[in-house]
């Protein structure tokens, strides 16, 4: 059974002066037990799509079934079945009240889902253990560390054991250690509880390390979709860099290798050659043999697998790195557009 089945989901924001098409008709299918990553730069439409799927924002077009309930006709049914941890970046935080204690927050969450007190107590104990929050029950949320607070936000979304969990930028703002720790928790959600996880991220490592499947969104459209490895292969191929002692050697090697069937593209850079090949580890021995046959001596060989960043660069012509300046196009989602009135 598909946990998410969306067709042509779109959202247009209108204000007096201009119209912004934040999401322009996306189709999403997520199967049970999958961890799916929604990858895109700031302003690509990730959060707007997530807000539509979680009943926070009404789509201007399209239909969707989320966790078995119709998004438009039965939003309450959707809300009963899904868990959600809002994003905690920019000016909004992830859902816990700074002046409440950890246990108060977990309890009220259980109460609004009408979980019987005894079941709630057991469930909360389990979550506190699983998310390494045990011992912090009496602490005010504002006194927690960033990683602890984020784990609490996620725990709040899990109190009612939802089969589908939405995490909006779950690790943004966390240090690398807390981040990989949180990845373990998300994996455990699926492996131990069989939950389906739909998360947004603009970290490529995160999508790569955590997700079974990735959807790349840019300017409100899904531009690529697949298993991370497959996406990398399909879009960029591997890169082999060969270094020779001299530029002449490099040029000569270029001529020798140009005819090889595996080689898609050759770029010479002085004494170095950059080759794009489909399956680098399989192509390499043959390439080395033919260089040997031509009597050319190599100084070094490097085989690089493409990263999702390369994929993104190939697809959009832009890099998705943390430190790259965000340059939303004229039609990009305005910051926090989903929450504007």
């Amino acid at each position: 059974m598909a946990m998410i089945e969306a067709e042509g989901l779109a959202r247009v924001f209108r204000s007096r002066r201009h119209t912004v098409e934040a999401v322009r008709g996306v189709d999403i299918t997520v199967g049970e037990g999958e961890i799916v990553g929604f990858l895109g730069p700031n302003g690509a439409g990730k959060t707007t799509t997530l807000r539509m799927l979680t009943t926070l924002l009404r789509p201007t077009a399209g239909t969707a079934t989320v966790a078995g309930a119709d998004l438009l006709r039965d939003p309450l049914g959707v809300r009963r079945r899904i868990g959600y941890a809002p994003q905690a970046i920019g000016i909004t935080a992830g859902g816990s009240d700074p002046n409440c204690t950890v246990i108060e927050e977990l309890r009220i969450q259980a109460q609004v889902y009408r979980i019987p007190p005894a079941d709630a107590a057991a469930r909360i104990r389990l979550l506190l253990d699983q998310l390494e929050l045990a011992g912090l029950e009496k602490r005010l949320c504002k006194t927690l560390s960033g990683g602890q607070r984020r784990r609490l936000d996620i725990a709040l979304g899990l109190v009612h054991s939802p089969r589908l969990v939405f995490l909006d930028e779950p690790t943004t703002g966390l240090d690398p250690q807390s981040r990989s720790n949180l990845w373990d928790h998300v994996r455990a959600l699926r492996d131990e509880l069989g939950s389906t996880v739909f998360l947004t991220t603009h970290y490529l490592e995160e999508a790569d390390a955590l997700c079974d499947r990735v959807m790349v969104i840019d300017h409100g459209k899904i531009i690529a979709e697949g298993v991370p490895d497959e996406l990398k292969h399909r879009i960029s191929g591997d890169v082999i860099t060969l270094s020779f002692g001299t530029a002449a050697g490099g040029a000569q090697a270029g001529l020798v290798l140009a005819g090889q069937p595996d080689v898609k593209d050759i770029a010479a850079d002085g004494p170095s050659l950059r080759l794009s090949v489909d399956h680098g580890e399989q192509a390499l021995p043959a390439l080395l043999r033919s260089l040997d046959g031509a009597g050319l001596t190599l100084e070094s060989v490097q085989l690089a697998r493409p990263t999702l960043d390369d994929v993104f660069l190939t697809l959009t012509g832009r890099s998705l790195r943390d430190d790259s300046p965000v340059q939303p196009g004229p039609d990009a989602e305005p910051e926090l557009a989903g929450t504007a009135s």
Partner: protein
Amino acid sequence: MSFFRDTFLIFRRQLRLSLRNPAWVIIGLIQPILYLVFFGPLLSKIAGGGLSGFPPGNSYSFFVPGLLIQLGLFGAAFVGFTIISDWRAGVIERFRVTPVSRTALLAGRVLRDVVTLLVQAVVLVLAGLAFGMRAPFAGVLIGLGFIAVVAISLSAISYTVGLLLKSEDALAPLINMFVVPLMLLSGIMLPITLGPGWLQGISRATPFRYIIDAMRQAFHGVYATTVMAEGICVAVGLAAVCVFVASRAFVRENA
């Protein structure tokens, strides 16, 4: 029913938060108490001087209802600030994704504000008694009833404006823009009947004028009058409009 249970859950949560920081309840009381102590004695002199417009009898029975309205205006009208910080913490969004009644998110908060304001009002009435106010018990109860209904109106509308604006910087001047004229035109300090005709005319177009007139009659032990009926109609009508507008804003898909 689910709505009442949800309202109670939110009310209890918000009340617990208020009790964690009771300082604000006390700070809210400071202003009306200051007026009572530093302005009340002047007023009793003026009223005692036989100035026209003052009802006969105890001047504090005239003054304390005015202070109660002032307490309500400044106490309940500014609660919108708290919904902005809740929104900023992601609390509103978090609850909107749960099956909790979205109207209960409003109602639970409004109920908390009503309770807070009633506690403050009781303290203010007791302080008034200490200063020499004399009013029948039933009249004071009616006055507190008015304050509760006023609190519902103002707090509901304040949350709505806060939720729509999402900016403290914009909310404060906006509230002052409405609250200060409403307060002046209701005749909190002095009888509005002292003023010229045009001022009385404008005053008749503001809701709190009617409410305060009715409260003053109640504090003087006069109940079965047209003024009282008008006051009740205006208070309840205002609350109905405010609650209607506010619950629509809270239930809306995108807020």
